[in-house]
């Protein structure tokens, strides 16, 4: 209803200010991209699986860490017994070579690690990136110089190398998934975010409404929170959406190299470490984590791309979604009392008015 009112108010003017709220427009534009919709559904399913991991494994009656030595052929080096890598009613996707741990349970719990670590890392990256970027953008010359230099150094830091090296020196007592998330977050990702936020802050800072806030004596902190953060939302969300899949890849890569998440915690990357040895005896040991990783990263990338398009006015204009104003107009035109004053007045009522006068 309020939307319709807003449309009426702005109908005559030439402003480009959308009458529809930002969030609704975002949904409209995201919905218009079929690929992004499918990707969103896949991501939602994955999140659901990760959240319901204990439930799903309880349904199967297994857990990810119990060894089943009876299910593997120790004479042949630990190849799972039975067809298709030990697939059975008890073990839906078979068992892991050498240990006999349940594949389904490890795969499902692996989703928790993958999504958890990448989300955690993304939150840290966004927080640090925004803090550094806004501080550099609002601070004086020296603050800006120092913070920008630090950011530049981190931009040119080789992610894999630094993460690997750091994992070597941190004591093992630290909870591993948290450590992996922190290292991924602090080594990479935040720096490009900070650069983008700084540039955006410098642009926003000189806009009238921020200047007005400054002139009314607002504190820098309050300006940053109340005036700048809303303006940073669109690029920030876009960037965060693209960071999530790359963080998942980073976690998988580190675990693949054997320095990320450590057993017995299951991780997709870690499963692939020795998959090439077992692919003939237990092909699903290679295919399942590889497929899970690919589908997850691909879906998140497509979704991230969709989010980017939906939040970028230039790219979104190609979607031909519009603000919904046209449809509102059409609906309004169909209603007689609204249609009358606009169309009928100038043509028909003028002579009538002239008559009596």
């Amino acid at each position, binding site marked *: 209803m309020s939307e319709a009112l807003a449309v009426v108010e702005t109908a005559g003017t030439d402003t480009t200010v959308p009458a529809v709220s930002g969030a609704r427009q975002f949904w409209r534009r995201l919905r218009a991209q079929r690929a992004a919709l499918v990707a969103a559904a896949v991501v939602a399913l994955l999140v659901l699986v990760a959240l319901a991991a204990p439930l799903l494994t309880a349904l199967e009656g297994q857990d990810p860490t119990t060894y089943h030595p009876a299910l593997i052929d120790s004479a042949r080096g630990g190849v799972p017994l039975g067809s298709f890598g030990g697939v059975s009613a008890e073990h839906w996707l078979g068992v892991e070579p050498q240990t006999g741990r349940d594949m389904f349970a490890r795969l499902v719990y692996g989703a928790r690690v993958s999504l958890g670590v990448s989300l955690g890392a993304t939150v840290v990256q966004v927080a640090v990136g925004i803090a550094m970027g806004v501080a550099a953008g609002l601070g004086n010359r020296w603050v800006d110089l120092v913070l920008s230099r630090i950011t530049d150094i981190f931009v040119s830091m080789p992610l894999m190398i630094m993460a690997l*090296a750091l994992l070597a020196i941190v004591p093992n007592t630290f909870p591993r998934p948290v450590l992996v998330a922190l290292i991924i977050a602090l080594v990479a990702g935040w720096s490009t975010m900070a650069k983008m936020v700084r540039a955006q802050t410098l642009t926003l800072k000189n806009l009238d409404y921020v200047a007005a806030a400054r002139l009314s004596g607002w504190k820098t902190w309050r300006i940053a929170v109340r005036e700048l953060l809303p303006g940073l939302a669109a690029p920030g969300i876009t960037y965060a959406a693209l960071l999530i899949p790359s963080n998942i890849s980073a976690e998988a890569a580190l675990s693949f190299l054997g320095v990320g998440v450590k057993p017995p915690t299951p991780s997709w990357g870690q499963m692939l470490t020795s998959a090439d040895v077992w692919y003939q005896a237990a092909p699903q040991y290679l295919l399942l984590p590889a497929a899970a990783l690919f589908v997850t990263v691909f879906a998140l990338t497509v979704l991230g791309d969709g989010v980017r398009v939906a939040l970028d006015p230039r790219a979104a204009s190609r979607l031909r979604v519009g603000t919904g104003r046209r449809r509102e107009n059409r609906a309004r035109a169909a209603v007689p009392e609204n249609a009358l004053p606009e169309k009928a007045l100038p043509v028909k009522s003028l002579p009538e008015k002239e008559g009596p006068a």
Partner: protein
Amino acid sequence: MNGFTGFVLRRVIGAVVTLFALSVIIYVVFYVTPGNVAQITCGPRCSPAQVHQVAQQLHLDDPLYVRYGHFLQGIFAGQDYSTGTSVEHCAAPCLGQSYQTGRQVTDVIWTKLPVSVSLVLGAMVIWLVLGIGTGVLSAWRRGRFTERALTAVTLAGTATPVFVIGLVLMIVVCGELRLLPFPQYVNLTDDPEQWAWNLLLPWLSLALIEAAGFARLTRASMLETLAEDHIRTFRAYGVGERAIIVRHALRGATASVIALNAVTVGSAVGGAVLTETLFGLPGIGQELVHAVKVVDLPVVVGMVLVTGFFVVLANALADVLYAVADRRVVLA
């Protein structure tokens, strides 16, 4: 021209400053860790006497800046090490010595570098051809089925971790089809043909992943040029579509492609960790993974510094190359 020289100079100074800061950060992070640094550096099997000797060589009793000074001195002027029985000289770019293997870090890097460089340069040829080709094709066939298909493929390329593609390639090509033997590194100088055959799969896996980025960049940059007014003017004059694509749109994309290539090569020399580990190539990345697992600190620090050096160098080079290709940058 003065503006250009100044630009290059500023960029070089910036790179030097970044390198210096990077070295400080790396030194502090790794040699000021909580715990007994000498013990960690020396390795778990060191005797107390050996640990004491390492502590002396790292000048652990001195304040931090003096220690860092010694470290820098090693890099620029070389350093002498006492191994207990004799004095060993470590020549100019000295990054220290591995106490676990007794080898000098610089030597380790020199023996591993050719493998990584072989991998990256070979892959580079493939990713450039594949990436630019795909980008041109999808810009040319914009709005059609070809473009949609190519866009989906490149998106899948950016989304696939390199070790997944590599694993699948290796298992299909070497395991199932038996078209190639499982890769084993052969020196270029020993047997160029075997060198190429054995590196073919690693090249392909690395290149397939990187090509996606080049395809997207080429396409985006070409589409931007194609949307400009002067292109419409050319069309109106009757210039053929092929000439417009090659002579104008593609040329417009070269600057950014060159820049991206410099950055990608720079980060790939160290960043090919995954490819090297997967295919068992004895390059810098594989050595680093090994050093990390056995906590061979001097090797880790040396590798991080060298790979960081490559990245910083590549970034500076990318900016300069970009400016050479597109002089407007200098003014900004």
